[in-house]
């Protein structure tokens, strides 16, 4: 399981979650989105997402 920040035109617009089964979920930066809430919890645990090159 991993997270990667997504950059569009030099602006970070969301984060990609890759599950253990390989499924990529594109998550917006919306506090009401439950996947984003899980991402924030993951970051709060001390984890850091990859950055898109």
């Amino acid at each position, binding site marked *: 399981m991993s997270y990667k920040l997504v950059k569009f035109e030099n602006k970070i617009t969301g984060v*990609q979650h890759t599950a253990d089964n390989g499924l990529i979920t594109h998550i917006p930066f919306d506090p*009401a*989105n439950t996947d984003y809430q899980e991402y924030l919890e993951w970051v709060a645990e001390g984890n850091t997402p990859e950055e898109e090159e």
Partner: protein
Amino acid sequence: MASIKLKGDTSGEVTIQAPSVAGTNTLTLPATSSTLATQNSLGVRNLIINGDMRINQRGNYSTTVNGTGVFYSVDRWLGRGKASAGVFNILANSSLGEQPDRFTNHVVLDVTTASTPTSNDSYSFQQFIEGYNISKLNWGTSAAKSITLSFWAKSTLTGTFGGSVANGDYNRFNPFSYTISAANTWEYKTVTITGDTSGSWSTTNGNSMRVIFSIGAGSGRLGTAGTWTSSVLEGVTGQTNHIATNGSNLRITGVQIEEGTSATPFEHLQFGQQLALCQRYYEKSYDINTAPATNATKGLELVAGTIDANQNFYQTVRFAVPKRANPSINFYKSDGTANTWRYDRSGASNQSGTPSVGDNGDSSFYMRIPSTGATWVVATMSGQWTANAEL
């Protein structure tokens, strides 16, 4: 034919008339002071979406609940359990002759691995309700209204069973109980729950209310019916736990929650209405009866355009129904392969690209396929998507 006529002081009258045929009809008035015509009988009554289990956009006909996460089944309904212990399947049933009267679908909560729950174990079937849809109940204030839960249940086991109504923040709970008298027989159940005058209950687009049917729980998750508490309770003390009996099952449909202290008949919405309500939380490009990630061309987004100077190909996709929140997106190629779409350009046909999402709103999303290997050439791209804005 007998009748009673009530005349107004100056004009107007109301006639209550009994039929001239055999049989008894009952007009049930609310237990509390209110006006019958406006308390809960006008407009949309049911706060539950897809209470008759008819909508199944994910095509999840058998959902295995074997973890503490969220396992979606038919639209808006989910299972929660425990890893490496009891396991149950949520089966979507539409078989003729197996439904209660006036219904065509139900779910079967079928225990496949038994476990006797202890301490804080909990296994359940739930629906989360958005704050906008229950704001009229005034919960969390002194003016909180009572609600009545009604549903049809059929169980291989008899006895007392339980559940709970909780808030989205998961710190207000009110267990309820119901009795199954006869095994393998559909029974209609109603439970009235006093409105919560405390706690935090979202009145906007957040998770405001959890309606929980317990499949089994340890003593740490069981409490007294009809009492609000901040302790995490998902069932009622003394309940029979289906999860403790391998092969047992509980069938449920016709779930309705409405304002007031009495249950009215299930509100049968038209299929299109119910589908649109579900699509506020989950939508897909596929046909309604096609499960995501299957080989399908119907529903494909197909766009023709030009690859830009950075080898990117862009497209905007609009939703049929605006979402509760900006949704999470998954992509699939027409053959069902996850994470990819197809693109075709001069000199490179039927290529697979990995899409990513840019600006993502509640009504549309903006996507691209990068690294197409060319610049400023005409191309097409196509694929399927799902959008998830569940609570």
